[in-house]
């Protein structure tokens, strides 16, 4: 069976919640039932076939095509399967995701991978604010899995993050790793201000020196840390230069903080 391919017939005027278009929701439906599945669009419910042209039958691999930038909650809570977005994606991509894989050819909006539990998200473009964060008011952000962004990301990535790894090849916005409880964020590009704000635990591993180290972080000196090659080697599944940078990145300057909080987080800056 070929992948279930959903092509938007025309650009959307408003946002569309596609959280029900995952393998978990579609695996027991035949193609006719999938075509008539109701999707919430504003205050209406519209059959899928009115919005998308449908090709293929295998819901374990779902492809979104067309002007997909207003599709929200792609892969919401999914436990298995593959979702491929051939353009941009909307907000809340991979929210509450528990397994499987999402690949985005373009960029995504805010709250990507928010409260994600497991699985893999690959984004070839950029990501908006609150990547891997908790929803507003919640205190548990991303708690597992891996997200790789080849472009840059917005502010407050990893806010309240608890576990898992965010890997960013490009630059980041402000408040990276704010209020982080645990987990790892690796950044190859530049970082914004207020790095690790109120960070309790967790690791920010930076390939480039940040524009400033917050005054509430203490300098612990330069060290060669054995876990870094192991960590970077685990990124071999990604199309990232990190595994090849293990030798350079394993020697780091270590800053711990945020002293305003628990203070057991760390910013590791590759020693040049």
């Amino acid at each position, binding site marked *: 069976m070929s992948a279930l391919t959903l092509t938007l017939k025309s650009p959307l005027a408003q946002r569309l919640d596609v959280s029900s278009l995952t393998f978990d929701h579609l695996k027991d439906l035949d193609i006719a039932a999938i075509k008539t599945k109701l999707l919430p669009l504003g205050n209406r419910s519209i059959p899928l076939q009115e919005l998308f042209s449908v090709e293929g039958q295998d819901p374990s691999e779902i492809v979104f095509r067309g002007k997909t930038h207003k599709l929200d909650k792609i892969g919401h809570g999914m436990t298995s399967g593959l979702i491929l977005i051939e353009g941009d994606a909307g907000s809340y991509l991979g929210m509450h995701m528990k397994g499987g894989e999402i690949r985005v050819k373009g960029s995504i909006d805010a709250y990507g991978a928010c409260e994600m539990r497991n699985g893999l998200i690959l984004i070839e473009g950029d990501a908006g604010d609150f990547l891997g964060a908790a929803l507003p008011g919640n205190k548990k952000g991303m708690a597992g899995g891996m997200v790789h962004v080849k472009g840059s990301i917005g502010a407050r990535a990893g806010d309240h993050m608890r576990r898992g790894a965010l890997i960013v090849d490009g630059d980041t916005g402000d408040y990276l790793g704010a209020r982080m409880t645990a987990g790892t964020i690796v950044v190859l590009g530049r970082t914004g201000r207020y790095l690790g704000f109120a960070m309790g635990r967790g690791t920010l591993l930076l390939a480039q020196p940040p524009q400033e180290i917050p005054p509430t972080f203490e300098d612990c000196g330069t060290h*060669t840390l054995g876990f870094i090659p192991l960590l970077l080697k685990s990124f071999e599944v990604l199309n990232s230069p990190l595994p090849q940078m293990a030798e350079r990145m394993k020697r780091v300057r270590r800053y711990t903080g945020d002293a305003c909080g628990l203070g057991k987080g760390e910013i590791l800056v590759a020693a040049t």
Partner: protein
Amino acid sequence: MIKNGVTIDQTFAEAFPMRATRIIITAQNAKWALIAATAMTGFATSVIACGCEAGIEREMAPEETPDGRPGVAVLLFAMGGKTLAKQVETRAGQCVLTAPTTALFSGLHDGDPIALGKNLRFFGDGYQISKKIGGRRYWRVPVMDGEFLTEETTGMVSAIGGGNFLILAESQSQALAACEAAIEAMRKIPHVIMPFPGGVVRSGSKVGSKYKALNASTNDAFCPTLKGQTQTELSPEIESVMEIVIDGLTQEDIQKAMRVGIEAVCALGAPAGIRRISAGNYGGKLGPFLFHLQEIMA
């Protein structure tokens, strides 16, 4: 069966079930990985009094180890899971955590998980850091030379201990030379260790003793100085007997190790003073695994 003038007895080695794990120790260089591994496998010749049987399985190249540094694979065997877990933890804490530049990884991910660094992490006094990498949990424990990196658990599997064969020679030096040749060949076989000093036992035992406090005592039937005093198994020309004991993860591993070991002994053969190969068994009372010498060498 006779090979190169060496008689292979129609008998069997008797082995028993054990629980085992493999651990990988890495360090800045092979020297320090080996020092840590040697310390960890010290005083681990026999479960009779050491708590576990342990040995170095092989040295590992940097590209084979989890952190890309030179390493050593160690196998540990014990009679039960709880004993093995205790031995692994104690030895890791006293011999690897303490050794400069080392890191500790699981070498077996099958079977039941037992603690490796799970409790050693508390040495970090709250400064330890957990990292989950590739689905496995690791602990970074701050120590005076930097950081001690350890995997949280290792896998414990069912295994076999007590595979053995005896080398009967015309002199002590000839018996030892044959043992050395056998051990050199057997160390190339994966999944096995020969836990005794240098891989060789000169004090093979029988079950029981005239002294009630002892469970085992000297194997008098194979003691050359008792040939005239006891129900001996030795012919007049035999002056020395040595034993090689093998612990392995599977029956096949032990069979393979016994075969290459006996082949190495037979290659020296009668011209080197080797007269017989036999094996230690207790009439089937000790364990369910029987390794028939002639079947292995067929």
